[in-house]
């Protein structure tokens, strides 16, 4: 198998990884970069557990080849926040009980982040469409929707106070 080098910016950090043409981006993120917050569910683009934000777009990292990610900018769940400094969406997920087994949570939070960036005041229907590529096998959708509504409220209040729109 031919080796090749992929350079990308992940969670603000520039990384260079030696990989192969048929390695999936998901495996590069988990195995080479050791960022295991990104999960593998179905491996076929249906469950959204492997969701990351690539060049500003929501993608299923199981359906991207590593070399296709050469030169891109990626945000994974590790780039959203951590235990010491939770993102408002993460806090809202915890407070509303939107996390059960937790396997879908990283993908759900990234989908929610992307949704709220594009649409800071989504309706319930818009939230459902925004997370339509993410399955929760605990079926805790209502609480996930509640969490996204709560996060939307807090983020817009925060932005009004700050006078800015960034999520």
């Amino acid at each position, binding site marked *: 198998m*031919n080796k090749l080098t992929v350079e990308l910016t992940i969670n603000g950090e520039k990384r260079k990884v030696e990989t192969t043409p*048929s390695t999936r981006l998901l495996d590069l993120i988990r195995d080479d970069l050791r960022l295991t917050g990104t999960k593998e569910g179905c491996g076929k683009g249906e469950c959204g557990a492997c969701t990351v934000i690539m060049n500003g777009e929501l993608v299923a990292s199981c359906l991207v080849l590593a070399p296709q990610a050469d030169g891109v900018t990626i945000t994974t769940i590790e780039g959203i926040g951590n235990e010491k400094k939770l993102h408002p969406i993460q806090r809202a997920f915890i407070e509303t009980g939107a996390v059960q087994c937790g396997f879908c949570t990283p993908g759900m939070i990234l989908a929610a982040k992307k949704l709220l960036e594009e649409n800071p005041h989504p309706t319930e229907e818009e939230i459902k469409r925004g997370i339509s590529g993410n399955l929760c096998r605990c079926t805790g959708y209502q609480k996930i929707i509640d969490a996204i509504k709560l996060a939307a409220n807090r983020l817009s209040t925060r932005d009004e106070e700050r006078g800015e729109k960034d999520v």
Partner: protein
Amino acid sequence: MHQRTVPCQYFAPQKTEEALKILFKYEKEIKVIAGGTDLLIQYYDRLYEINGWLDLKNIKELKEIRIHQNQMEIGAMVTHAQLEKSEDIKKYFPVLSKAAADIGSPQIRNRGTIGGNIVNASPAGDLLSPLMAYDAQFKLLSLQEEVVISAEGFFTGPKKTILEPAQLLTQIILPLPSERTYGSWIKIGKRRALIIATIALALVVEMAKDNKTVKDVRTCLGSVAPTPIEIKEIREKTVGKNFSQLDFNQLGQIVEDKISPIDDIRGTKEYRKDVAKKIMINALEEINAAWRLYNE
């Protein structure tokens, strides 16, 4: 055990010309990859079988949507999300825009492409019946020649097309419809996201200059035959007639009679036939309502 004789190659050229040279050299030895949302699922547990990738991601001209004279030209690498959001596509080809919005999920729409959807040639490909309904032509390039072929001539069976190993689909060409063109898109599936259509209908009706008489009708369906198909008998029954005097029930019956669906995990033949008639009637009623609204 699969034995690899040559190392796996990966190419991502900047120009179509370079891509064609690579294709000419390797032909079947290489897989062309666009968004990968079908291909990587197909090869999910056997990625090791692939000897080489030709990735089209760096070819800028394949990512453009533009109006040129009386045609819309859509690059093969335009994503479903681009199609869904494009104001020009919404304005001129609403059925295509709606079909793109119904594909997969945000994750899939951001990666999957119109060219990939066409070349994959699934009988259930969501964009295929709308493209056929808008009289799309596909531009196929090879080092030797340029071929432009109608959607109807391109598909030959389930996952089968006339595309040769050294040819690349580069562009989709749609004639701009007149202002008096109405359309309806109906996709039936077990859920709204991430579903392969049990049956889908793209109906496009163009009125004559008097805005009452039917000038042309294209009734195209997916998941009812080995390829996306047009029911041409509908055109024979409607062209030249006053739209408001058409017998919608009879037209629905023609659609039911002319399709040849199969039983599969997404639905039975009987179900598909029943539903085909009903969605045809619904689509005609939707167009009727839009047409009345516009003219009253």
